C-alpha cells in the first residue's frame, strides 16, 4: 500500500479559512464602500 493511502491527508480547514479571509476581507471592504455609495441613489 502506498504512503498516500496509508496516511490520512492533512486537515486543510485552517488553510481554506485563511485563503477565503485573504480575498474576502478586501472584497467586503469594497462592497461596504459600494453599498455606502449606492444608497445615495435613494437619499441624494
Amino acid at each position, binding site marked *: 500500500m502506498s504512503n*498516500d493511502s496509508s496516511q*490520512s*491527508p*492533512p486537515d*486543510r480547514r485552517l*488553510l*481554506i479559512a485563511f*485563503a*477565503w479571509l*485573504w*480575498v474576502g476581507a*478586501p*472584497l467586503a*471592504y*469594497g*462592497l461596504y*464602500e*459600494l*453599498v455606502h*455609495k*449606492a*444608497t*445615495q*441613489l*435613494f*437619499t*441624494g
Partner: protein
Amino acid sequence: MSPPVAPAGWSRWLVPPAALAVHLSIGQAYAWSVFKPPLESALGLSGTQSALPFQLGIVMLGLSAAFGGTLVERNGPRWAMTVALICFSSGFLLSALGAWSEQYWLIVLGYGFVGGIGLGIGYISPVSTLIKWFPDRPGMATGIAIMGFGGGALIASPWSAQMLESFGTDSSGIALAFLVHGLAYAVFMSLGVLLVRVPRTEKPVEGAPSALQGPQVSARNAVRTPQFWLLWIVLCMNVTAGIGILEKAAPMITDFFADTSTPVSVSAAAGFVALLSAANMAGRIGWSSTSDLIGRKNIYRVYLGVGAVMYALIALFGDSSKPLFVLCALVILSFYGGGFATVPAYLKDLFGTYEVGAIHGRLLTAWSTAGVLGPLIVNWIADRQEEAGKDGSALYSVSFLIMIGLLVVGFVANELVRPVNARHHIPAPREAVDVERQQPESA
C-alpha cells in the same frame, strides 16, 4: 515550469481563492479613472492623454489573452499567475518611476503595456484549472473568478482615492501611490501563485463527471469552427449592449429625468453607477451558477432575449418611471456580467477542457471589439441627437434601438450554436492529448 499537481487530500475549495487573489487584483484596471484627474493636473495632460494607459492596458489584455493562451495551457496556472504578478506589479513600479520623474511615457509603457500583459495572462490563468476542479459546476467556478475582476474595481476605487488623499495629488504623491499599489498587489497575488494546483486526476470529485469527458478540441481547431465565431458574436453583442448603459450611466439617468418632478442629483447618479457595478458583479456569480442548472444555451437566451426586452422597456417607458428605469438597467448589467462569467463554461461544453483557457483567451478579442463598439455607438449618437436639438431621453432612443438589434443578432447566433463536428475532435482522450502537446504549433 511544470504545472503544480495537487497533493493527496488537497481541497478544491482552495482554488477559487487562488483565482480571486489574481482577479481581484487585476480588476483594479476599471478603477484607473481615480488616477486621471491627479495625473492631468500634475503632468498637464488632457483627458484623452490620461486615458491612454487604461486604453493600452485593455488592448494588451485582449492581445495577450489571445496570443498567450496556448502558453498558459502548456505551462500551467502557476506559471501564468507568476507572469501576471510580475507584469502587473512591475507595471505599477514603472509607473511610479514615471510619475516621480514626470516622464508620462513611462506610465503609459508601465501600466498600459507591461501591466496590460499581466491583465490578459492573469484573466485567463485560472479558467482552465477551475473547470478541471469543478467539472460538476463549471459555471459557478468560473463565475467566482470572473466576479473577482468586477470586484477588483470596487476595492481599488476607494482604496486608491484614500491613498491619493493621504500622499497628495502632486507627482511625488502619485508616484508613492503607484509604488504602494505595485508592492501590495504583488503580495496579494502571491497567495494565488502559492495556492493554485491542478487536480491529480481527471475526476477530482467523487460522483462528478470526468474533466476530459465529452469532445475535446484544440485551440487551433476551435477557431476554425463556426461555433467559436458564433460564440464570438454572442459575447460581442452582449458586452456591447452592457457597455451601452455602463459607458454613460450617470449622464443617462440625469438626462432621462431632467424635466420630470423627480430630477436626479449628481450624488444620486453616482449611487446609480455604484448600483450598476453591484448588479454586474452579482450577475457574474448568480447567472453563471444558474447556467449549471438550466444550461448554457438557455442562459444566453435569457441574457440576449430578456436583455432586448429590458432595452425596449427603457426606450418606451423609461422616462415615466424611475424605478422601472433603474430595474431594467440593473437587469441589463447583471446580464452583461453574467455573459462574461458564463462563456468559459459554454466553451468547455463545446470544446472540452483540453485547451479551454487558450480558446477563452482567443474569444476575448470579442470583448476588445465591444469595448470600442459600445461607447462609440452611444456617444456618437448622443452627440448627433444633441446637435439636432434633442434632449432628455430622446438623446438615447436611437442607441437603444441599435442595442436591441445587436441583442437580436446575438440571440440568433446563440440559436445557431450546435455541437462541434467530430472531425475537429481530438481522436482519443489520453493518447491524442499527449501526442498533440508534443507537436509544434505550426505542425
